[in-house]
């Protein structure tokens, strides 16, 4: 296999970006119209995810140690999207056709053979890992009944769900959620509680204006609905067990969820760490979970909670989370975790970096719908800032 030629041809096709991805899916659905039903109505994010995942595979094609675990995870994950083994050759066919379309006169028999071989290897690794996961009884997804649905503000709801089988996760991880209200639209949410003995999980959901899934979860979802949950992922917002630095947790809005879980998990841990949680919102009403947080702070001597509002005319002192953090600091000996909207995370990271906090001491994690999620597991605070600035 001519790796250099493979990479060069991919670079040429991926330059077409969205156009190449659109052509790929159009070809795929012409080959097998039944496959359209595996995807959401809107394909925008899907095209981005395809390009990022394929790009990652091509750029690591000779690094088997990195590539194989990635492709295996891709294979296990695709069970959640209800892909059958017999769909793989169809996808390969559409991929080769797209490459031929994208390369035009540069498409050669040799390239066709190389790509065909590469796709054959990747797809068989995916199928094997999917079959292995099925044999090991690892669910493709967890059905989870909504057992509680409480609107806390005009656009925030707290959902409590009960997975039908045990779903083990660490505080700070995220799970993808899908609802029959918006088929095939998966979005990541972080549970707001540490693992409970009855297995129930709380999710804090804000209805993003014009969003695809979150408004359905906030306004249309009811108790008794069954959601699907994907396998938990994420490592950046988890606290390594054992001794370690004290923590500064900076939360904006529903970004409190993973930190609440983290505090609960730490409370069950014999090793004590000092934790300062700064919780911010636009107005007092938006501090929708303050009662529960206050109760935690009263019960746990090592936990300090500071609440701030940034845009409330009835409150005299307004501050952003970053301003409150810098005023109440210094926190140079702490590990800093940031969670909130992309704008809040970017703004907060920028302020902390400007104030001399090292990038290595700041931990962030955001799973968006534009990148295949496992590729975002090593997001740095600088990346988070750059992404928002670019938009």
């Amino acid at each position, binding site marked *: 296999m001519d790796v250099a030629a493979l990479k060069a041809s991919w670079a040429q096709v991926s330059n077409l970006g969205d156009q190449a991805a*659109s*052509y790929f*899916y*159009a*070809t795929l*659905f*012409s*080959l097998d*119209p*039944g496959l*359209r*039903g*595996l995807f959401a*109505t*809107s*394909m*925008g994010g899907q095209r981005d995810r395809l390009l990022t995942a394929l790009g990652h595979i091509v750029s690591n094609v000779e690094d088997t140690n990195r590539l194989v675990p990635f492709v295996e995870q891709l294979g296990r994950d695709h*069970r959640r999207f*209800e892909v*059958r*083994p*017999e769909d*793989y*050759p169809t996808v*390969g*066919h559409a991929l*080769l*056709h797209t490459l*031929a379309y994208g390369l035009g006169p540069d*498409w050669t*028999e040799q390239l*066709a*053979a190389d790509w*065909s*071989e590469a796709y*054959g290897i990747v*797809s*068989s690794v995916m*199928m*094997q890992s*999917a*079959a292995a996961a*099925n*044999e090991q*009884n690892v*669910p*493709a*997804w967890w*059905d989870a009944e909504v057992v509680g649905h409480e609107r806390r503000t005009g*656009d925030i709801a707290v959902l409590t769900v009960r997975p*039908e089988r045990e779903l083990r996760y660490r505080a700070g991880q995220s799970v993808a959620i899908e609802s*029959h209200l918006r*088929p095939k639209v998966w979005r990541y949410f972080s549970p707001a509680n540490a693992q409970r003995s009855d297995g129930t999980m709380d999710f804090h959901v804000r209805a993003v*204006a*014009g*969003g*695809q899934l979150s*408004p359905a979860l906030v306004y249309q979802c009811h108790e008794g609905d069954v959601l699907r949950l994907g396998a938990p992922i994420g490592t950046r917002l988890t606290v390594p067990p054992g001794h370690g630095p004290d923590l500064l947790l900076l939360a904006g809005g529903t970004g409190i969820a993973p930190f609440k879980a983290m505090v609960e998990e730490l409370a069950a841990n014999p090793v004590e760490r000092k934790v300062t949680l700064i919780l911010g919102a636009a107005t007092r009403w938006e501090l929708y979970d303050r009662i529960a947080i206050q109760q935690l702070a009263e019960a746990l001597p090592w936990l300090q909670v500071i609440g701030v509002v940034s845009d409330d*005319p*009835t409150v005299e002192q307004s501050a952003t989370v970053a301003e409150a953090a810098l005023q109440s600091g210094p926190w140079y000996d702490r590990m800093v975790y940031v969670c909130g909207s992309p704008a809040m995370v970017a703004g907060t990271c920028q302020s902390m970096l400007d104030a001399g906090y090292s990038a290595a001491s700041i931990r962030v994690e955001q799973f968006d719908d534009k990148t295949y999620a496992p590729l975002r597991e090593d997001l740095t605070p600088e990346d988070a800032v750059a992404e928002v600035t670019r938009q």
Partner: protein
Amino acid sequence: MSTTPQHRRRPLSPHEIRTARIRQIGFRKGYDPGEVEALLQRLAEEVAARDGRIGTLLAENDRLQRELYARRHGALPANTAPELDESAINRQLQAQQYVEEMMAAAQTNAASLVAQSKEQAREIVVAARHTAEQAVREYRAAAGPSYTADREELTRLATLAHWAIRQFSGLRSQVDATDDAARQELASILDRIGPILQAHPPIRQSYQEDEPRFG
């Protein structure tokens, strides 16, 4: 079979077989649940193993056919296989483009509707607060010796509530009007899609819509 919603028409997956539940009716004689469970587990494993093998074989077959073709003809098959028809691909592209347009329009409308409503709600609250403080000043001026702090607070809250309720019902009718405009825009996109769908039967979906997506 509680785990198989009607809209999913694809063959049962190993996971679905494994998690299948068969409803029990009354106290009639039936099968030993333990044995049923064990049988389902075994079936799921066998189907999973077979699926994996079928997929590998299909991929291998695909590869071998290409290789065979290449050896016989000295060239790989043209990648535009007979069933791949560029005009069908173009129709797919166009259909998806319309869908994206419609989704984008719906999302933009929803976002601006929410933003406008929030802004207005905020203005209403500010104005209501202003009116309430004015009512309180009037109460103070008129109350004289009968003044109490409780009555002042009641006056404030009552004015606030009255004002806000009146204003919010105005806001609601405005939201409805914006919503109508959005529906019209979406309907016009649907009109444009209509002729394409009539010329070519709609693509098969593995789920059926039981409610309109833009309600």
